[in-house]
């Protein structure tokens, strides 16, 4: 054990000796390799190594959450500062003591360093760029990331847990000019499982087809949302189920537990225990065991996501989703449907296939009114055939409306994680009727 680890233990003891209770200390060592590329060349490679502790301490029914990114800290001075600070907090009527939990042993170790992946990562990027250019794409841009978090979590009830979490992700965009683009992303829990084949195929698909380009006409359309945009929307749904969003007036799922919020075809669950996802985690930031849970089951909202504090406020139990402040899902899964991907265009008939979107903004969080700008392929479909590449479209609708209008889901989920989808999300294609599309004059 090195000096820094000993200091963390000393800090825990020192805080206890000063009267603090319900102490949680999470130490995270993060190594990250980021390679950004554009114009078919590497723009910059980045290696970050950081050390951080986050703490939650209770003191006379008060508590404080804090983080420290200074490994050279002095234990006595820092403990004094924390006690001085927490004692100035008001008493919290929802003060939630920590809970004793087991010491878990089933971790998936990561036994290397990101710097060892450097050549391999460059090879992957080179391959993705070259394969795209071979498909007559003019320009590519993207980002490849490997992140390894080594976590130790201690609490004042004697828990001392450790975990190693690895995330590998790629986001790849192809451009023939500023308006004719394609994009796809993927992720895995380690570099050998990263499948870039769909990333190349899907991001180049409509550039290769060279469809005629047209400006979209505003109106109501039947649409197919690809996993890229569907994952983005479903991540927003899962975050709206965070009890913090509900409490803050920022959720369209407020006061809807056990109510129908979507059509029967839609089930969304949070699964931290699937080893194929980088969201794999055995315990949350409060040391509570994580478990799979349905957020929406066959259209019915089953639960909000809780940590100990929100659970106390909502008079329920933690769902193992801490976030010391904001409960968050670990990995979001959409239940697949039964339609094959190659059949869904025929099922749509006439309408739009929408690949991606960005810049989602709410007009009203509580009601779920929003719009998002569509990009990377809005394809006009006529009698199940791809007709033209449409530009200038915006989806301007409402979350509850969209969830209720889902007609069909395909039978294969894609792993999606990029700029607009932070939580690892597994999503299929979705056929949705009668959505509102607008455009600018």
């Amino acid at each position, binding site marked *: 054990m090195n000096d820094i680890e000993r200091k963390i233990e000393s800090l825990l003891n020192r805080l206890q000796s000063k009267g603090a209770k319900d102490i949680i200390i999470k130490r995270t060592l993060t190594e990250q*390799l980021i390679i950004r590329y*554009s*114009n078919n*060349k*590497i*723009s*910059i*490679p*980045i*290696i*970050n*190594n*950081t*050390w951080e502790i986050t703490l939650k301490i209770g003191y006379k029914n008060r508590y404080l*959450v804090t*983080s420290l*990114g*200074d*490994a050279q800290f002095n234990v006595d001075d820092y403990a004094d500062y924390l006690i001085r*600070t927490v004692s*100035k*907090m008001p008493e919290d009527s929802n003060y939630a003591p920590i809970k004793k939990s087991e010491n878990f042993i089933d971790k998936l170790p990561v036994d290397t360093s990101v710097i060892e992946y*450097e*050549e391999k990562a*460059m090879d992957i990027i080179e391959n993705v760029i070259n394969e795209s250019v071979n498909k007559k794409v003019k*320009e590519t*841009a993207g*980002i490849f990331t490997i992140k390894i978090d080594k976590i130790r979590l201690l609490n004042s009830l004697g828990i001392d847990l450790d975990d190693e979490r690895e995330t590998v992700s790629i*986001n*790849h*965009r192809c*451009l023939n000019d*500023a308006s004719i683009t394609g*994009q796809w992303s993927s992720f895995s829990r380690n570099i050998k499982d990263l499948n870039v084949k769909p990333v190349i195929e899907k991001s180049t698909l409509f550039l290769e087809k060279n469809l005629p380009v047209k400006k979209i006409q*505003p109106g109501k359309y039947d649409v197919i949302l690809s996993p890229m945009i569907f994952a983005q929307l479903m991540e927003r749904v899962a975050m709206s189920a965070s009890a913090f969003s509900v409490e*803050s*007036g*920022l959720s369209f799922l407020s006061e809807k537990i056990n109510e129908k919020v979507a059509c029967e075809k839609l089930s969304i669950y949070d699964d931290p225990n699937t080893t194929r996802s980088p969201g794999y985690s055995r315990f949350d930031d409060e040391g509570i065991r994580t478990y799979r849970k349905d957020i929406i089951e066959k259209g019915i909202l089953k639960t909000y996501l809780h940590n100990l504090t929100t659970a106390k406020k909502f008079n329920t139990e933690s769902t193992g989703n801490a976030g010391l*402040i904001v409960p968050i899902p670990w990995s979001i899964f959409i239940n697949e449907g039964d339609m094959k991907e190659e059949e869904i265009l025929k099922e749509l008939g006439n309408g739009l296939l929408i690949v991606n979107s*960005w*810049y*989602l*903004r709410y*007009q*009203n*969080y*509580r*009601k779920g*009114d929003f*719009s998002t*700008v569509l*990009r990377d392929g809005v394809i006009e479909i006529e009698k199940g055939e791809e007709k033209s590449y449409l530009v*200038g479209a*915006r989806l*301007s609708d409402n979350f509850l409306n969209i969830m209720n209008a889902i007609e069909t889901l395909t039978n294969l989920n894609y792993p999606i994680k990029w*700029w607009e989808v932070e939580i690892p999300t597994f999503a299929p294609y979705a056929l949705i009727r009668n959505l509102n599309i*607008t*455009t*600018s*004059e």
Partner: protein
Amino acid sequence: MEEIINKVLDYALKEGAKFAEARYQDLRYNEYVFINGEIRNINTGLIKGIGIRVLIDGSFGFASTNILTQEELIKTCNNAIKIARTTKRRGRNINIERHRGYHDTCIVKPKISHNEKDFDEVIKDFKELDSDVFNLEQRIKTRLFNVYTHNEYKLYMNTEGSKIEHQMPYTLIYRILTAIDPQKTTVQRAKGVGGKKGWEIIEDENFKEDMERDAKVLGKILDEAKELKEKGQFDVIIDSEIAGLSSHEACGHPFELDRIMGREAAQGGLSYAKIEMLGKEKIGSDQLTIIDDPLIEKSSGYYVYDDEGVPARKKYLIKNGYVNEFLTNREYANYISAKSNGSARSAFYFNEPLIRMSNTYIDKGDYSVEEIIESVKKGIYLKSYMEWNIDDIRWNQKYVGLECYFIENGRIKEMVTNVPLEMTTGFYFKNITAVGKDLKFHTGTCGKGDPMQGVPVWFGSPTIKVSGVIIR
């Protein structure tokens, strides 16, 4: 720290770097979250570390650490050198625009420092503010305040001999008010105030009065506002808040030269602007001038040298409708044989510096607000918004007016809401037919890059008139 950094920079040069820089950051923050007047959480923290960027064999390499020993920093520098060298054959053969070394210390002293108020005082103040707003309009069932303060020290050093220190406070107070009338509807309003200031920001920016005004307006929207029935072509008067945001979204972002040249294509996208437009192309009316100025003291976007050690200056991005200047950094200025105009910023020590805005605004014109209103025969006045977005070439944009009024024969008539202003940048800029004298600024956090970097900015504008807008 200075001594260790010098050793690291010398080491980089010995290893063959053409240029190297180190950015040390010590940022101490407090974040308070209030829901309905009750403190929900205080999150305090310290972010402290060094980012090292080297240019070697025509490639950049960037590495960071927060273990601040000489041994660890040399290891970090080695990481930057190693990955830059690995990049060589797949890289861009980068050259950068060079400067002399600068030595400077830039300090902003707050009038009321964050340390002058204990947590309990801050909690008491915001509890009172919450109570005031609830007493004014009791249908505002949910009030969320997010209060963020930090004090930041930055030390920048490079192999050109620069040593630049910035020490500044920053305060951002963001609020979301949700008014619910079960018989009618729900309306929300989000707004922030921010600047490189201490607690004096509450008085300076009229936080209380502004919030109380919003509370009354939310009540009025619930009671009086109607959806716009008549659709068609209107003259639209746009208040400072929306027009200011549009200067950021439709001019500032697309005038970032890295975006124009494709570096952000996978994330924030590209730009309608092209290098060949510089100094030649007219994209707005004569009345449209848009400026980016980092030297507005105590503003959210205030800095004196950028994060590549280049002196900051005011830039006229659009001048009387013409494309006049793009935002640049050392690498991208070099591509167009220009001098960097000091627009490189990074949010944290572990982020690479990118081309960013600071304080972007539409310059003031000659009209009073009354004159603008009187000039409109049939129109709509958009005072505030909730929803907005823009496509990734910054051409197709939308702002949905929350507090809006119908205007007839130069007079303000009934209140309307949810007015969607959806227009292209080309149409918008060319149809600005009046610009007011009432320049005001607003605060925001601008996002760019991957990993996402949020940096504080102001955006501003006077009241403006856009003629002939189609509203559906």
